[in-house]
């Protein structure tokens, strides 16, 4: 397949909607290419490119809904997928939480596409692997990494006249560098929309430096520490907390944002007043599609402002039931910050722990969003503004809802990705007091 143009995509979606005899019909067309290269033990292990494109059609007869998808787009196939969706809708039980298709939306385009990223070749990917492997080989280090790039398009339409089309692209890079004896490990990650801002040769130096610097780590006693969390380290905790921002869960009494006695904590100040988070589909560095999974137009949405909860995520059904306006659900999460880098925060720290990365974060108690997980690939002790020595990894048991009340300083936001988060994130390095490390790990 190829990346369909707006006209081509619209022609396919229009055919599907026209073919439907149901009360309403919505259709989406998504397609693209994904390229990747994976390497380990200083050698390429797998590489490939996958293309895919799907037309999904959802129809409704009254409150009965049916969905079907297909990956061929001739007239007969389009007709067939619509008929199949209609057949499923007729068999389906009535959905008491049915909401009609969205009205025509006004989508303002966002900068999600880079020609340069879309033009990445197999040679470029091999070059990324080589740029990581070569310096490691020379330095008696071992590299294992993954680079993946995508170019895609997304088109959306319905029988109420709504239509949207936009192209996207992106790259994601992670690399772990270990010493040959396994006593040191470092990591680096970059997530970007525009590949021209990516330089594997320079990025890999971070992982190399951390791998060498983390050899012969000392053991510190578990307990409460002042920590400097690199953006990738706190991203997993913060994005996990966002699952608790669901309005229905909160109203039902099963979120940390539920209120004793009923209702939710929308409008309450729950975090340090320096905590401000928002979504903005047009943010230059973390742009996302200007519509959400339901097709609702995304807006710039304050989530937390100066510590106060300003947003809960209302599904269209729950918004209708509660008399609220449903707005497009965020695709990115931007935490506001200052200008300081991670190392600037280190410089201003008397005693503390620098955390490169967190790992295997899981929910322990949804009541308090207590999370557990571990530090990994570069944990260091800070004294008098300097990194003094590597320390053994810790397990933490900490709630982001508590962590964001213990803020000492906020640095400059950086784009980060987390493989378990649905958001593109801009997260600053954070200096946090009283972060709870509950045990030591021998893992390197």
């Amino acid at each position, binding site marked *: 397949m190829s990346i369909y143009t707006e006209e081509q995509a619209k022609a396919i979606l229009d055919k599907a909607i026209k073919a439907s005899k149901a009360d309403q019909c919505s259709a989406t067309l998504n397609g693209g290419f994904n390229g990747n290269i994976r390497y380990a033990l200083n050698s390429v292990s797998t590489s490939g490119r996958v293309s895919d494109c799907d037309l999904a059609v959802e129809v409704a007869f009254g409150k009965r809904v049916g969905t079907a998808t297909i990956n061929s787009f001739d007239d007969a196939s389009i007709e067939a997928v619509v008929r199949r969706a209609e057949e499923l809708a007729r068999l389906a039980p009535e959905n008491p939480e049915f909401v009609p298709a969205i009205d025509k939306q006004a989508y303002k385009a966002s900068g999600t596409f880079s020609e340069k990223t879309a033009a990445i070749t197999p040679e470029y990917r091999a070059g990324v692997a080589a740029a990581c492997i070569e310096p490691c080989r020379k330095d008696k280090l071992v590299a294992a990494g993954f680079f993946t790039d995508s170019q895609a398009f997304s088109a959306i339409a319905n029988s109420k006249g709504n239509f949207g089309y936009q192209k996207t692209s992106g790259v994601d890079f*992670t690399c772990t560098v270990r010493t040959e004896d396994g006593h040191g490990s470092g990591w680096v990650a970059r997530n970007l929309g525009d590949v021209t801002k990516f330089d594997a040769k320079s990025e890999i130096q971070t992982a190399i430096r951390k791998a060498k610097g983390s050899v012969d780590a000392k053991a510190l006693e578990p307990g409460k520490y002042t920590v400097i969390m690199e953006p990738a380290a706190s991203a997993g905790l913060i994005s996990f907390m966002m699952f608790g921002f669901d309005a229905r869960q909160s109203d039902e009494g099963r979120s940390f944002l539920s209120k004793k006695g009923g209702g939710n904590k929308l409008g309450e100040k729950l975090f340090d007043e320096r905590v401000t988070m928002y979504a903005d589909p047009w943010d230059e560095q973390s742009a996302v599609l200007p519509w959400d999974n339901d097709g609702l137009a995304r807006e710039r949405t304050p989530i937390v402002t100066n510590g106060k909860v300003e947003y809960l995520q209302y599904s269209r059904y729950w918004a209708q039931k509660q008399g609220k306006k449903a707005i497009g659900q965020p695709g990115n999460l931007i935490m506001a910050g200052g200008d300081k880098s991670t190392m600037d925060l280190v410089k201003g720290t008397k005693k503390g722990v620098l955390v490169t990365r967190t790992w295997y974060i899981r929910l322990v108690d949804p009541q308090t969003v207590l999370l557990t997980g571990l530090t990994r690939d570069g944990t260091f002790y800070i004294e008098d503004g300097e990194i003094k020595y590597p320390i053994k990894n810790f397990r933490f048991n900490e709630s982001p809802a508590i962590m964001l009340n213990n803020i000492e300083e906020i640095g400059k936001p950086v784009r980060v990705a987390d493989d378990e988060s649905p958001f593109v994130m801009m997260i600053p390095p954070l200096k946090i007091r009283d972060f709870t490390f509950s045990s030591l790990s*021998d893992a390197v």
Partner: protein
Amino acid sequence: MERRNFLKMTGIGLGSLLLPAMHGRVIAAEALLSKLDVATKKKFADIALNAAKSGGASYCDVRIGRYLRQFVITREDKVQNVVNTESSGIGIRVIANGTWGFAATSDMSPDAIARAAKEAVAIAKANSKIQAKPVELAPVKGVGEVSWTTPIVKNSMEVPIKDKVDLLLGVNAAAMQAGASFINSILFLVNEQKYFASTDGSYIDQDVHRIWAPMQVTAVDQKTGKFRIRAGLSAPRGMGFEYLDGNKADKVELPGGAIVYGNSYDMKEDAIAAAKQAKEKLTAQSVKPGKYDLMLDPSHLWLTIHESVGHPLELDRVLGYEANYAGTSFATLDKWRDKFKYGSDKVTIFADKVQKGTLGAVGYDDEGVKTQRWDLIKDGTLVNYQVIRDQAHILGLKESQGCCYADSWSSVQFQRMANVSLAPGKEAMSPADMIKGIENGIYIIGDGSFSIDQQRYNAQFGGQLFYEIKNGKVTQPLEDVAYQIRTPEFWNSCAAVCDEKDFRFGGSFFDGKGQPGQVSAVSHGSSTARFNGANVINTARSLG
């Protein structure tokens, strides 16, 4: 890495992240019943094998896959979604110039298949320029044309959707009647129709079935603002719909009164118990942190086995192939050579892909190796790992153990975890016998929160039900319990394992590994086991 709880925070909010295996086209229910005929599959496979050989491949295997999935998703009195998906296509793997190459296509025309085979050869040849050592493949004798089917009684795909919806809504109603504030229940049904052919002379047709019926029951006390969840105690299984028959003979009442299940699950009964227990959890005693002897039910212990034994004994992790994502392993080859004491002499842990009713059970793995059973830890000593054909030589093995799996026709097969199980104790012992000897302990039933480091040393586990044990008896329910382990110390603290009458399975439907990520399903069996002097923490916090 066991995937994050499929119901996220409290049991709602289903999103794409939560259904990692839900790729494929959405299809009509009746299409789940059809199959590609074997002669056609053989014809397609031969096209690929011939094209690869003529292109210069020294080895080729072909997987023609049709992956069918059905999800029925409900909450309280509502069906939230019924989804049928299908993904089919052909994946071709070759060795050329001593290097692997892979290509896949959903286009099942002879030309497209031959083209994909040639592309796989071209990729292998291109990659061979940077290959340090040629692939060394343990031999497999061709088996000719054979077939294997999961021994099911009722094909889940043949059960009408209405019956499935009625079952779940009945379960939900029972829980609500028993006092639940909310319930979410789901059926995940999988049928993998897999055809494997290789230049070794094998043509293997397999029909694999799996089922999972998870639920989460929530109790909310609005006055205190407290809520608690009790998840179902079922296990995902390599079985048909008969797993949900709820045969009384497969029901087990544990000391203290909790009910757990063997090879047959009574979902409605468990939902009623869950509603009562979720409410009980709202007022249960918060645990005093400290050292306790743990009595771990198989419905809980499977996840500890999965994380602290199954993963660290995957040879690709030990060697460093997963260093950038899932991690490496503390159980290095020198420890294996030095007969590392992984656990106490009560601990024998075996791997297999043959036990009936398990998620890992197949006749042959995804590189045509007949499946088997072998010991990983024998009487406490590390004796083996889990390997595939191109790793066997590293351990001096003459053949692969059959641990190769791909989650789709379009994914490259690689080493995945077999079923890994704790062997039952040799002496007669029931859970009722075991508890008598425990003075100060905690009995844990069901799996809860889980997390482990990237070398599999430090882990923390929660559970569903916790009971205080004092002087040989269950005294009261507890809450806010999690225990932390260092893997070798934990397994060396194993003081007793109940006998084979108590042997039951748990498992993971969505075990994640690799980049790009793939999922696999794996079972872990055990009898109830006792671990002395574990470090228990209290997980209660206050948000002020």
